[in-house]
C-alpha cells in the first residue's frame, strides 16, 4: 500500500499527486515510470515519475483523466492508499554533458520532461524548453520549467497564452534561426511526437521520444507494449520508454492505442452513470 500525501488539480482534468514511496524515490531517475494499481479491480496504469525527492522519500505523478482508471485516481484524496505502485520502471533518460538541447513537452507531457530538463541543466547543457498547452486554463508548471531551462517558449493552440500555435511552430523557428541544436527530446501525445520527429528528420537532428504504448505488466513479460523501432519488435517497458524518434513506427503505435476504445468507453460510461446515480 502506498499513501497519497498530497493531491490537487493542476487544471481541467489534470491532476497532481505526491506519493510516499521510499524504495522508488531512492533509485528513480528522469525518464522512468511507475505502474499504479488503485485496488484489486483496477487496471495497471503506467504513469511517468514527474518528480522525486530522495530526502523526503516521495515521488510525484501528474495525470490526465482519460478513462475509468485515471478518473478514479483523480477522485482519490490525500490520506488515501493505493493498492500498489511498481517502479521505477523503464530505462532512465540518457543525459549528455555540455550540449545544446531542445526539450519539448505537450500538455500532460510537460510533467515528464521536467526532471529531464532539470538533470540536463545540472549537467551543463543549454536547455531550450518549448511547452505547449491547449489554452491558458491548462497552463501548469511554467515556473518549474522556467527554473530548469536556459530559455522557455510557450505556445497555446488558441493563443490565449504565449504564442498562438503548436510546439512544432516554435520548434520550426528555433531550427530556422540557425542555432546549434545537438538533440531534441519530445514528450506528449503520439501525434505531436510524430510531427516533431518528421520535422527534425528533415534537418537530421537527433530526436528522442518517450512512448506511451498500452501496457499490462510493465516488466517485460506480456508484450502488450510492443512497438516497431527500426523494423524490429521492441518492448516499451524494457527497451524504452525512450527511443530514437526517427526509427519509431508512430502509425502502428497510434493504431494499437485504439485497441480497446469501445470497451474502455463502455466501462467508463457505465461507471459515470453509476456514480451520478448515487
Amino acid at each position: 500500500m502506498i499513501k497519497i500525501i498530497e493531491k490537487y488539480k493542476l487544471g481541467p482534468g489534470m491532476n497532481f499527486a505526491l506519493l510516499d514511496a521510499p524504495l522508488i524515490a531512492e533509485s528513480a531517475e528522469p525518464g522512468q515510470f511507475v505502474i499504479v494499481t488503485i485496488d484489486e479491480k483496477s487496471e495497471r496504469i503506467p504513469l511517468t515519475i514527474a518528480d522525486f525527492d530522495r530526502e523526503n522519500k516521495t515521488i510525484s505523478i501528474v495525470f490526465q483523466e482519460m478513462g475509468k482508471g485515471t478518473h478514479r485516481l483523480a477522485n482519490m484524496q490525500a490520506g488515501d492508499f493505493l493498492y500498489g505502485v511498481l517502479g521505477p520502471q523503464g530505462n532512465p533518460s540518457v543525459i549528455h554533458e555540455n550540449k545544446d538541447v531542445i526539450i519539448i513537452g505537450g500538455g500532460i507531457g510537460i510533467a515528464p520532461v521536467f526532471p529531464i530538463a532539470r538533470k540536463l541543466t545540472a549537467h551543463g547543457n543549454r536547455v531550450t524548453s518549448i511547452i505547449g498547452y491547449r489554452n491558458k486554463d491548462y497552463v501548469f508548471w511554467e515556473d518549474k520549467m522556467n527554473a530548469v531551462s536556459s530559455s522557455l517558449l510557450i505556445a497555446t493552440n488558441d493563443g490565449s497564452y504565449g504564442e498562438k500555435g503548436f510546439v512544432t511552430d516554435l520548434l520550426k523557428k528555433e531550427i530556422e534561426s540557425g542555432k546549434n541544436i545537438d538533440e531534441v527530446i519530445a514528450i506528449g501525445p503520439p501525434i505531436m511526437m510524430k510531427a516533431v520527429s518528421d520535422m527534425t528528420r528533415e534537418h537530421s537532428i537527433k530526436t528522442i521520444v518517450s512512448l506511451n504504448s498500452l501496457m499490462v505488466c510493465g516488466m517485460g513479460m506480456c508484450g502488450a507494449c510492443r512497438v516497431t523501432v527500426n523494423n524490429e519488435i521492441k518492448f516499451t517497458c524494457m527497451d524504452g520508454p525512450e527511443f530514437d524518434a526517427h526509427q519509431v513506427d508512430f502509425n502502428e503505435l497510434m493504431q494499437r492505442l485504439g485497441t480497446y476504445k469501445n470497451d474502455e468507453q463502455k466501462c467508463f460510461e457505465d461507471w459515470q452513470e453509476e456514480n451520478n446515480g448515487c
Partner: protein
Amino acid sequence: MAVNYKSVPMREQLPDIRRKNFDEVPLGYSEEEAVEEAQRCLQCPKAPCISGCPVNINIKGFIKHIQNREFKEAVNVIYESDTLPCVTGRVCPQEDQCQAKCVVGVKGEAVSIGRLERYVADRDLEQRANDTKSIEINENLKAAVIGSGPAGIACAADLAKAGIKVTVFEGFHKLGGVLVYGIPEFRLPKRIVETEIETLKKLGVEFIKDTLIGRALTIDNLFEKGYKGIFIASGAGLPKFMGIPGENANGVYSANEYLTRVNLMKAYKFPEYETPVLKGKSIAVIGGGNVAMDAARTAIRLGSEKVYLIYRRTEAEMPARLEEVHHAKEEGLIFKMLTNPVSYSVDDKSFVKKIECISMELGEPDSSGRRRPVPVNGSNFEIDIDVAIVAVGTTPNPLIAKTTPDLKIGKYGEIPVDENNMTNKPGVFAGGDIVTGAATVITAMGAGRNAAASMIRYFSDIEQ
C-alpha cells in the same frame, strides 16, 4: 490378488457446462474413491514410479498410508520432497513422469499418483495453514528470494524452516508467479496458491510486492542492505513472437498477455474488473504446449464460437499434458495440426482479420529427436479470425542479467548454475525456469529446495 487395470475415474464438470465457467474441471476424489484407487498400487519392491518423479517422492510410501486411511501420514511423506502437492497433483505431466514408470501401467492404466497426491494434499490444505507456527528466526541471517513462483516459494519455505530471515521480492502485485498469472483458475484454483502463501507468511517469510529486482534494487544493492544469500527465481517470462507480417496488429496477443489479462487481472469479469480483453468470435492459438492449451480453453470460456489450435507438428508431438488435450477436445477446440502461420492481414483499423497458414509435413528428425516439420509448397490457405494468441515460447527476462555485471549468463539468457544451484557469483543462487528455460512446476520447485539446502550450507561456511 488380481491386478485392477482400470483406474477409478475422477468426476468432472461436463464439457457443455464447463465451457461457460472458470471453475475447476476435475472435481477430486472422495475418500472411498481415493482408497479404492490406492488399492490398485502393488507396493512393488523396487517402486520404479519413484525414479519417474523429478523430486523422488516416496510414492509407494504415501500410497500405502492411503490404503490404510492414514491421510495425514500420507501427506507428510509427500511434504518431505514436495512443497506444493496441491499444485503438482494437478499440473504435473504425470504421464511422462511418475505414472510413466508405474508397473500397473505396462498392461493397463497406471495408478493415478497425481490424483492421490491431490486428494491427500487438498484434505490437508486448510489444516496445514492452521498448524503452521513461526519458528525462531535468526535476524542476522537474511536471505532474499527474487520471484514468488514455485521455485521461489519452495526455497523460501525451506530457508524459513531453518530459521533464516527470508524476504521474497515480487514484481507483480499478486504472489505466485505462473501459478497466478499463467495457469487458469479452471485448472488450478487461485485459493490454493493463496493458502500456500499464507502458510509461508506464518512461517515468518516477508513478501515485498510491486518491486522488480534490477530496477528498484539490484542484486548488489541487496547485498549492501545486508542480505547474505540471494536466490534468483525470476522465471522465463519474456514472450517470443514469430516475426511474421502483421504480428503487431490489434488483436494479436502473446499467450502471456492474454492469460495475464484474464487470470491475473480477471478480464473475464470485465467491466467489474477494469482490464479489458478482446473476446473475438473466431480465435487462432499458435503452439502445442500447456500454455497454448490454457489460452485456447480460456478463449472457449470467454464465449468464442470457433477456437483453432494451430501447431506445426502432429498431436503426437504436442508437449501439452495429455489430460489437457483430452479436456480441450471435449470442449470443442478445433485442432489444425501440421499447420504453420505465415502472416496476418488486417482491416482498415488495423484489427486482425485473417491468418494465412501453410501446411507442413514431417521430415528428418531434428536435434530434439522429433521429426522436423517442413512446409508444403503452395499449400497456403486462410482462416477468418478476429483474435490470435501466440504461444510459441518464452525466454528469460534479461533485466537481472543486465544489471548484475559480474553474473555469468548463458547463450539463451539463462543463468548457469552448478549442482548446488549456485551461480558464478558468491552467495547468489538461481533455479527454476530462469536456469532451465520454460520447464515444469515440479522441476522449479525441486531447484528451489536444492538451492535452499545449498544456501544453508553456504551460510554455515561463512558463519565460521
